[in-house]
């Protein structure tokens, strides 16, 4: 572990782990309901990778906390202790909205994770090394789908533009910097997210141009998820399902 305030490190790890946990959960809701068989497979695969990353991030967080396991963190915290960005907890909406959210997140991960792979914290670096390969694959796939649907029929174009308009106010949170980020940057554990924005804008700009989609104007951003100040009403409902068995049968081993 690098030389850094433990509580800060835990917060950083929870942000990473909760993002993949909650998005993995949302994606897994599609199981058996996708528009075409190949997408069923791809969505299950994405969910699988994300939950796998969750195990690593929350596992490390639990290790730093000392008296927890990754499962404790996933299944026994309530809304206020989650540190995921609001974007990933939003309901799936239609397939277009799900894929748009996926792309907006994958693009971020595909930039962040390779940096984290060079983290001064070797455990962070190791997890990021593995996850960044998956993220590279994910972003290629979700970008392709966004392009295919954005530049598809009139209906698919309209739906993708609606999805982008709806999700855009949730993008800014990924780059909002606070004391935790500053501490991570100082310790060389993680880059300040704000420094990734230009690269992110370039990447999504290219894809949206190809997809003939228009990035909305205005930079208003909903905040609060990664700091834990607030969440949407949707997260609580998600947890009732996700945590049901562990809550109903405490202490059992599965």
């Amino acid at each position, binding site marked *: 572990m690098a030389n850094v305030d433990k509580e800060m490190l835990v917060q950083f790890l929870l942000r990473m782990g909760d993002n993949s946990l909650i998005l993995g959960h949302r994606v*897994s809701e599609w*199981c058996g309901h*996708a*528009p075409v*068989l190949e997408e069923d497979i791809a969505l299950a695969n994405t969910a699988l990778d994300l939950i796998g990353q969750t195990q690593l991030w929350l596992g490390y967080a639990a290790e730093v906390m000392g008296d927890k396991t990754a499962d404790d963190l996933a299944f026994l915290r309530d809304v206020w202790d989650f540190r995921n960005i609001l974007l990933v907890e939003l309901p799936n909406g239609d397939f277009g909205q799900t894929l748009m959210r996926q792309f907006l997140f994958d693009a971020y991960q595909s930039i962040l994770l390779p940096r984290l792979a060079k983290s001064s914290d070797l455990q962070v670096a190791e997890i990021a090394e593995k996850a960044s390969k998956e993220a590279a694959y994910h972003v290629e796939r979700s970008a392709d789908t966004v392009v295919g649907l954005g530049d*598809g029929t009139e209906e698919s174009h309209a739906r993708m533009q609606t999805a982008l308009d709806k999700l855009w106010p949730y993008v800014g949170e990924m780059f909002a910097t606070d004391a935790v980020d500053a501490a991570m940057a100082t310790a060389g554990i993680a880059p300040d997210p704000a420094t990734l924005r230009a690269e992110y804008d370039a990447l999504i700009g290219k894809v949206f141009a190809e997809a003939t989609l228009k990035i909305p104007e205005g930079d208003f951003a909903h905040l609060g998820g990664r700091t834990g100040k607030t969440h949407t009403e949707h997260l609580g409902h998600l947890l009732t*399902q996700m945590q049901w*068995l562990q809550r109903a049968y405490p202490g059992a*081993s599965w």
Partner: protein
Amino acid sequence: PEKLAEFQKKIDADIKVEPCDWMPEGYRKTLIRQIGQHAHSEIVGQLPEGNWITRAPTLERKMILLAKVQDEAGHGLYLYAAAETLGVSRDELTEMLLDGRMKYSSIFNYPTLNWADIGAVGWLVDGAAIMNQVPLQRTSYGPYSRAMIRICKEESFHQRQGYDIMMKMAQGTEAQKKMAQDALNRLWYPSLMMFGPSDAESVHSTQNMAWKIKMNTNDELRQKFVDQTVPQAEYLGLTIPDENLTWNEEKGGYDYSDPDWTEFFNVLKGNGPCNTDRMEARNKAWDDGKWVRDGLLAHAEKKRAAKTAAE
């Protein structure tokens, strides 16, 4: 008729029939029905297990279940591809599923009501499926046989994972043991039904066995399944819900109670506990997904056109 005799000779000699080979219309039709039904079962089979993905009790279990359901979709893909070699498209087969012309395995019309059901589905349902499928690796139609070889490998992995869940539950808290027994109680007879009605009532059997589309009789396979499963249940400390279950020294297998065939035919007719839900879910996925399929197709065509224009 001459061709037919030659065809049969080839089959008797264990030479695989390949897509371009001549084949009798009945053989083709039967295969399309069987492979299609099997493919549909993989697809619909995602639903009862998918029902617990969002409630899986640990990250590990969630991953295992996701991987399994993903495998099932993959099996669907292999099988649709095998069926396509017989001249029917995946979309055509899907339409036939959705409007009720084609069936899927009735077992998926039963609900998954507690977490142990996910174990029991792996242990019993995949167990019965494997029992049906292992001989089909030697089936006469090449693409089907090769698909079954890939599928069987994964299915036996799934079965072990299911048994592992059952083990955890059976060795767990009182509530977990109760879940395990409850799952076995509800899924035992539906699993026995998976082998189909008794041989006496089974139609087409003789021809299909001659064509090596069907390799064993229903009752043979069912007996084999019972004989394999009873000791596994004993090992788990669970009770098979059959008062008449006894070891028959003479036949070297267990005597067991027949499932309720009235229920079986009722479920086939559409009156199972989940028929409506399953078909609604698949129809909704298909209808809601139309714009996606259309969009991706339109984009692919634009790209193709642009490429052609550039050449």
